[in-house]
């Protein structure tokens, strides 16, 4: 049993994780006729908490409660994985990535996320403004404007051979490449890295 847990605690390769994620699509369809998509949960929370009479948030969200259970499960899964299956070793990154990030001032590679960025002490700083406030806003605004995120378009939409989802996925990647390759360094310098 211990050996099994140790084996599970290693980082899982892509060819295990990818098919498992892909299987979420038929699983949700077959257990309840649900179309896979995660960013919709954000819309439902808005519809529940602050509908403010806006037509976009005025609908029967109770019917979509399954989506909120799903994301709650994702949070619990994250907790379980970290509590019982955590990898004791440092994250193994491509050498090139590690040296480029180190040059940007990200030097702590002990966890899954860089402590230089993702800590509460950064919340009320320019770093927090960039990485949490601005970044989060763009994720929420952009996914809703696009009508889906990586799950709804890149996985669900492409699985169903929907060309609008291919367009969306291409522009997700274009935005990501541009931010990483062009804007991230000056932005990080600006916030004090």
């Amino acid at each position: 049993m211990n050996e099994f847990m140790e084996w599970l605690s290693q980082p899982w390769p892509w060819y295990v994780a990818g098919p498992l994620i892909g299987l979420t699509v038929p699983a949700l369809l077959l257990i309840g006729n649900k179309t896979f998509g995660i960013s919709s949960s954000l819309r439902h929370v808005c519809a529940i908490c602050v509908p403010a009479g806006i037509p976009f948030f005025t609908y029967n969200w109770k019917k979509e409660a399954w989506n909120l259970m799903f994301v709650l499960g994702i949070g619990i899964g994250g907790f379980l994985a970290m509590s019982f299956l955590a990898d004791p070793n440092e994250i193994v990154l491509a050498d090139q990535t590690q040296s480029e990030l180190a040059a940007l001032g990200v030097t702590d590679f002990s966890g899954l996320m860089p402590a230089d960025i993702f800590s509460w002490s950064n919340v009320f700083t320019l770093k927090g403004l960039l990485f949490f406030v601005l970044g989060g806003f763009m994720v929420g605004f952009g996914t809703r404007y696009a009508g889906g995120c990586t799950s709804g378009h890149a996985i669900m939409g492409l699985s169903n051979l929907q060309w609008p989802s291919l367009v969306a996925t291409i522009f997700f990647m274009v935005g990501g490449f541009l931010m990483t390759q062009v804007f991230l360094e000056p932005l990080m310098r600006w916030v004090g890295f």
Partner: protein
Amino acid sequence: MQVLEKDKEFICDAPNSEKKEERGLELLKYLIIGVIFGIVFVKAEIISWYRIQEMFRLQSFHMYGVIGSAVVTGVISVQIIKRFKLKTIKGELVQIPNKVFRKGQIIGGFIFGLGWAITGACPGPLFAQIGSGYTVVLVTLMSALAGTWVYGKFADKLPN
């Protein structure tokens, strides 16, 4: 009756096409799938800001392998479901709504991509990051909710 009409108008991007209403314990199955999903997210390090950086710097195959093999699995599954007209456990025919093209998929998709590279997370991993102890990501989540709300508020004024 009014609610019913609203339901007809409402097109969610990840809709519930089941005709029967589900309540309470019936919703637990989605929680369980979510738990498995969250564990995979953490163990394959998809929630890691570093992995997203590797992907957008084209320095590792990992994320491309994950997304690529997920799509291949999804395509095969959906083809099987359609070909054999598979039914849900409650006996309903599986329905998969088509995605309709809008300009938002270009503009919004681009904006999301910019944010994805900053936060190192799309909406799914946000929840897994919080659960796995990076509680500061709650701030990112609140901000993502604000972004969603602002889109909803101005949806009819944006090019679409």
